[in-house]
């Protein structure tokens, strides 16, 4: 698929059913997300929000249903669509500094360091991760979305509780970032308990509803 096709491709998740430890988590779930869309996953703890994000990221296999990108079968780990899963665990090694962890991820993805430090991570850039607070680690994780590349416009962001540990200032920075990403034609799926980006009128998927 060429990059121009990719930029407008729609990611469809059809009839996905998830069992974990022989327990039905959700059944026949459908989700379509195209360029410029934002989708919010709602639901109580254990409703399968994180699992759904991990399925789309390619970490969990699907037992039923299918995922496709413009009609082609979508294999997240092999796809040309850049995918960013930002959720716990973040992939940082506690003994390495924030800067080293971030530059490792940047070089793995062949990206360069960001210019705008929107989440103010420079303050603790040289500290090892184990000395940082939960909110600071969350900010560092979100900074991965700022890493630069010319092919990140259409990227799919999978954010798992991105704002649960952020202070109000950085919540605002996150909302602005998501808004810009959508304007540029990106795709965002967020699992959140706190309200986020409500002014963008997102698709809302309710998980774990008793039927």
């Amino acid at each position, binding site marked *: 698929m060429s990059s121009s096709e990719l930029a407008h491709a729609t990611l469809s998740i059809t009839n996905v059913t998830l069992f974990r430890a022989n327990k039905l988590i959700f059944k026949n779930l459908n989700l379509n997300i195209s360029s410029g869309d934002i989708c919010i996953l709602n639901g109580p703890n254990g409703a399968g929000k994180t699992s759904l994000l991990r399925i789309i*990221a*390619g*970490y*969990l*296999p699907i037992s039923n249903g299918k995922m496709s990108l413009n009609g082609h079968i979508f294999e997240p*780990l092999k796809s040309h669509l850049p*995918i960013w*899963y930002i959720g*716990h*665990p*973040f*992939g*940082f*090694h*506690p*003994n*390495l500094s924030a800067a*080293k962890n971030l530059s*490792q*991820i940047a*070089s*793995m*993805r*062949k990206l360069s360091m960001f210019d705008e430090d929107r989440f103010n991570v420079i303050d603790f850039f040289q500290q*090892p991760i184990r000395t940082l607070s939960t909110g600071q680690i969350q900010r560092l994780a979100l900074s991965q979305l700022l890493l630069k590349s010319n092919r990140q416009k259409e990227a799919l962001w999978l954010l798992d509780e991105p704002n649960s540990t952020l202070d109000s200032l950085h919540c605002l920075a996150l909302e602005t970032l998501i808004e810009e990403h959508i304007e540029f034609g990106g795709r965002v799926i967020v699992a959140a308990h706190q309200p986020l980006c409500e002014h963008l009128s997102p698709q809302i998927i309710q998980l774990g509803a008793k039927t």
Partner: protein
Amino acid sequence: MILIFFQYFIREFEISISQVTDILSQIGFFILVMMLFPLSLGPDPNKLSEYGIALVWIAAFVSVVPAYDRLFTDDYLHGFIEKAAHNDQPLGCYAAAKCLCFFLVTTIPLLIILPVICTMIGLNLSIFFELAISIVLGLFGVTLLGGIASGLVLGARRAAILAAVLVLPLSLPIIIFGCMTGIALIETTPIKPYIFIMIAMDLSLIVLAIPIMQLSLKNAIENN
């Protein structure tokens, strides 16, 4: 691929440096095990040098094997393997870099301390070089086996003991040929055949271990 291999390798090396106490405690363990032998077998140098080679091998093994469960566990728990899976390069590249770094940081300190140990148990230092080669070859193979075991036990309970139980029987051929090299050294018979067999085992393990590790890491991500 070579570039990303080096990046993984450098990352591993930095992590190892930051956890230098792990390496030191492993070397301390090796020295202590070796010190037990003169105490238990008696200080007779003839007797000690007769068993010496086998004792060095066993002590080196016993000090290295418990570390294998840690090989991938940290990165698994911290989510790094998932990040690496999103890379264009296969996970085998990551696993190979990890094993190589682990092999170097466990073997080099052991080699540094080895002359002292040889003197302690009455081994002639003239055979040190050949002994070191056989230990390097042996530990290289065992590290690859350890990588397989570590990948397979990811996420399991009591992973440390399980990994050790997996590694030890598989590494028997390496121990046997390693000790035979040592015996040949003492008896001054040719050691080349044994060394070549160990090289052959190491090479075939490289071919086998990397795909197995790649598969087991992938499987571990799906079960997280």
